[in-house]
């Protein structure tokens, strides 16, 4: 067997504009439709088809409906266990988040590269994408926190049972650990870039 040609391991992470390179601009920035955008769109379409195919509401569910209901039930349980009854209203958001990341990851793993001309791409392997998801989650926490508790939300930085003589230190540590959250979310997803 001869040389199979050089394999470039970084090629799968390359952002390539597909069309709109010449005149699609917003405020001087080019917004070409890239392969990343294409795969996010594919993820959305596949996810939409998956949910639509199972949303039949039959009393005796078929296999597809069981799959979709299982996924929704899983997220519902996650929120019920972690947030409690107030978490019910976040089910749509967490469901979208979970299934978008899952579908995007799995679509990127499919051996579609075997078909000539098809280049699979994992949009969640880029920090821009995971970063936006993390900022979204972080903003929701901030908005909900301040809307529900007002300035009392800052008591998050003073955990229960903090001794008075440590009041100068604990809030600083809590503040840092709070501000690091979006990076922790985004990097955890992007760094093991698979």
């Amino acid at each position: 067997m001869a040389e199979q040609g050089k394999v470039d391991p970084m090629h799968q992470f390359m952002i390539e504009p597909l069309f709109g390179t010449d005149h699609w601009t917003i405020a001087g920035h080019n917004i070409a439709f890239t392969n990343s955008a294409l795969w996010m769109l594919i993820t959305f379409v596949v996810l939409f088809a998956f949910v639509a195919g199972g949303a039949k509401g039959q009393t005796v569910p078929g296999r597809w409906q069981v799959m979709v209901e299982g996924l929704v039930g899983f997220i519902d349980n996650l929120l019920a266990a972690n947030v409690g009854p107030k978490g019910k209203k976040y089910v749509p958001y967490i469901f979208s988040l979970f299934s978008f990341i899952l579908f995007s990851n799995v679509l990127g793993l499919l051996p579609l590269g075997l078909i000539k001309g098809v280049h699979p791409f994992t949009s969640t392997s880029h920090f821009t994408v995971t970063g936006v998801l993390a900022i979204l989650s972080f903003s929701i926490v901030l908005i909900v926190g301040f809307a529900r508790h007002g300035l009392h939300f800052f008591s998050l930085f003073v955990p229960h049972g903090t001794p008075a003589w440590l009041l100068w230190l604990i809030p600083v540590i809590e503040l840092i650990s709070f501000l690091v959250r979006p990076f922790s979310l985004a990097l955890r997803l992007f760094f093991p870039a698979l």
Partner: protein
Amino acid sequence: MISSTNSGMLWGTVVGLPSFALMIAICALEILVAGIQAYVFALLTSLYLNDAENLH
């Protein structure tokens, strides 16, 4: 993998089969990681939402 199989029974068994098994295992690992990443993101977001919703 294909080269080792072509060079006879011995190399096919000694080199090809373990490589094949390893590739399958790594693919399984990647699928596992794909699921875990999504789960961890959802879990952490729900934990942070819990902080925002139920303040002590």
